[in-house]
C-alpha cells in the first residue's frame, strides 16, 4: 500500500511535465495541422539551456529556468518562420519530412556542442526529501509539480481569456474564416508554434535537473508527447492535460508492478490500443481522419 502511494505521488509529479509536453504538441497540431517531430528537441533544448546557464555560467537556477522557456519560444518562432511558413499549403507528409530533417539537425547539433556524456544540473534545493507519512518526495520534484501546474493554468488563461487566445481558437475552428475576419493568421501560427515550443522547453528545463541531460533525451519525449496527444484527441488541450497524467500513471504502475524494462513501451501500447478501439481519443471532439 505504501509502495502504491509512493508510485501515485511519483506519477502525479511526472504527469505535470507530461501534460506540459502534451499541451504544447496538441496546440501545434490542432491549430497548424503539423506533426511536430522537433517537439522533443525543444524539450532537450530547454534542459540544455538550463544546464548551460546554471551549471556552466553560474546563473541563478530560477533565472535560468525562465530564460530557457523564453529561449524555447524564440527558437520555436524561428523554426516556424524559416521552415513552416514557406510550406503552409503543402501536404502534411512533406511538412513531416521537413520536421524530421530539422529534428536530426537539432539533435546532432546538441551532440556536437555538448558531447554524448550525460550532464547533471545542480539545483539549490536541499538534498533531504520531504517526508509525509510513508511517502518521500524530493523538494525539487515538489517544485517541478508546482511550476508545471502554474504553467498549465497560465496556458488555459491565455487560450480562454486573452484576445490572442481567442484568435487561436478561431483559427483552430476555421482558419479561412478567421483570416476573413481580419485575424493575422501568419502571426497566429508563429505565436502558436512559439507557445508550444516554450511549453516543451519548460518541461525539459523542469525534468532536466530531475533526470540527466543527454542529446537523445528528446526522442522519447517526442514519442511520449504523441501518445499523450492521441490519448486526449488531437487539438484537445484538456484531453492532453488528462492524457499526460494518465500516461504517467500507466508508466509508473507498469514499471512498478509489471516490468521496468517495458516502462517506455507503455506509451506506445496506449497509442496502439487507443487508435484501434477509440481512434477519436478518450475525450471525443474533433474528427480524426487526415
Amino acid at each position: 500500500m505504501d509502495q502504491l502511494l509512493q508510485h501515485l505521488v511519483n506519477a502525479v509529479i511526472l504527469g505535470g511535465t507530461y501534460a506540459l509536453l502534451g499541451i504544447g504538441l496538441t496546440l501545434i497540431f490542432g491549430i497548424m495541422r503539423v506533426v511536430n517531430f522537433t517537439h522533443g528537441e525543444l524539450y532537450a533544448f530547454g534542459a540544455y539551456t538550463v544546464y548551460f546557464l546554471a551549471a556552466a555560467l553560474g546563473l541563478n537556477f530560477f533565472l535560468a529556468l525562465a530564460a530557457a522557456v523564453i529561449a524555447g519560444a524564440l527558437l520555436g518562432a524561428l523554426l516556424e518562420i524559416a521552415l513552416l511558413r514557406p510550406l503552409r499549403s503543402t501536404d502534411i507528409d512533406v511538412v513531416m519530412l521537413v520536421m524530421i530533417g530539422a529534428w536530426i539537425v537539432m539533435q546532432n547539433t546538441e551532440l556536437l556542442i555538448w558531447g554524448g556524456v550525460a550532464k547533471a544540473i545542480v539545483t539549490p534545493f536541499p538534498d533531504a526529501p520531504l517526508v509525509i507519512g510513508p511517502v518521500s518526495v524530493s523538494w525539487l520534484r515538489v517544485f517541478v509539480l508546482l511550476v508545471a501546474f502554474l504553467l498549465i493554468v497560465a496556458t488555459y488563461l491565455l487560450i480562454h481569456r486573452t484576445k490572442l487566445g481567442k484568435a487561436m481558437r478561431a483559427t483552430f475552428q476555421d482558419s479561412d474564416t478567421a483570416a476573413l475576419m481580419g485575424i493575422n493568421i501568419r502571426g497566429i501560427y508563429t505565436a502558436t508554434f512559439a507557445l508550444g515550443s516554450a511549453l516543451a522547453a519548460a518541461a525539459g528545463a523542469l525534468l532536466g535537473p530531475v533526470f540527466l541531460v543527454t542529446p537523445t533525451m528528446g526522442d522519447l519525449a517526442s514519442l511520449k508527447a504523441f501518445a499523450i496527444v492521441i490519448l486526449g484527441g488531437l487539438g484537445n488541450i484538456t484531453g492532453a492535460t488528462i492524457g499526460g497524467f494518465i500516461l504517467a500513471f500507466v508508466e509508473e504502475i507498469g514499471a512498478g508492478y509489471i516490468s521496468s524494462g517495458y516502462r517506455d513501451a507503455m506509451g506506445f501500447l496506449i497509442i496502439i490500443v487507443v487508435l484501434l478501439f477509440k481512434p477519436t481519443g478518450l475525450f471525443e471532439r474533433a474528427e480524426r481522419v487526415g
Partner: protein
Amino acid sequence: MNRVLRAFWLVVMLSVPLWLQDQYLLHVLITTGIFIIAAMSLNLLLGYTGQLSLGHVAFFGIGAYASALTTLGFDVELFPGFRAVHQPLPAIIGFFVAMLVAGMSGYVIGRLSFKVRGAYFVIVTISFAEVTRLVALNWVELTQGPLALTNIPPYTLGISGIGFYTLWSKTAYYYFVLAVGLVAYVVISRLVGSRIGRAMIALKENETLASSVGIDVTHYLVLAAVLSAALAGGAGSLYAHYLKIIDPDIFLFIYTVTMVIMVITGGKGTLAGPIVGGLIFGFLPVIVRPIAAPAVQWILYGALMVMIVFVLPRGIVPALDRCLARWTQSRDKVLSMAGSGKPNLSKQP
C-alpha cells in the same frame, strides 16, 4: 536506348568486384545494397500507395532476428511448463523464414494500422516499431537483449549431391545481395505495372474515388504492406548474416529515417528512386567521414533532407527525367528543323 542503358548498368554492377579492389568500399557497397533493398520495399508503400510508414525498420529488424534465430536455434519458455525448442537450420532457410515472418507481421500491423490515415498512421507505425524494439531489448531469453545475437553464420548455397558454396568472401556476398536486389527490382516493376499497381496508385491519388469505382482500398493497402514487409524482412536477413551480429539497436528510428531519406531524395514512386537515393546516402559517409565528425554527418543528412524537400520535392529521378525529356524535345526540334531545312536547300538551284 532504354534497353542499352539497362544492359550497361547491369554490366557495371556485375563487374564491380573485378575493378574495385578496395575492401572497405566493397563493404560500403554491400551494406548500401542491403539498405537499397529495404528502401525499395518502403517505396512500395510510400511511393505507390502514398502511406508514410515510419515503422518500416520493424520489418527489417523482425526479418534479421527471425533469420538469425532460425539459424542459431533457440530454447525459450513460452508459458510455465511449455518450452519452445528449435534446432538450428541452414542460414538460407533463415532467409525465407525472415520473409515469411516479416510478411505475416506486415499483415497484422497493416490490418491494424490502416484503420487510420495521415498523421495517425504515421504515429501508430512508429509505435509498433518502438514496441518491437523494446521486446527485442527485454525478451532476453530469446534475443539475448543488449548482449546481441552473435556468431550468425553466412549463407550456404547449393544442392545436395552437387556441391555447396558458403558466402565467406565479400565478393560472393556482393553478388548475392545484387541477385536479391535485381529480383526485388524486377518483381516490383512488374507489380506496379500490373492491375494491383494501378489500383495502388489510384488509391494514392484519390482514395474516395478509388473506393467508389470498386477498388477494395484496405485489401490493396494490406497487400502492399505484406509485400513491402516481406521484402524488408529479406533485407534484414541479408544484414544479419553479413554483419554476423545483431542487437536491438537495429530497430532504432534512425534506420527508418535513413530509408525514408533514400526514397524521398531519389524520388518516391519511381523504380530508380530508391537506388539513386540509396547510393547517395550510402556513399555520402565515405566522402564526408575523413573531414567531419559523425554528428556533423548527421547534421548534413538532416539539412540535405530539408533542402531536398524544398528544392526538389519530388526527388532527383523525376527531376532528371524532366531535364532529359526537355533535352530530347529540344534536340528533336533542332533535328526536325534541320531536317525540314535540307529539302528546301536542295531545291534551290
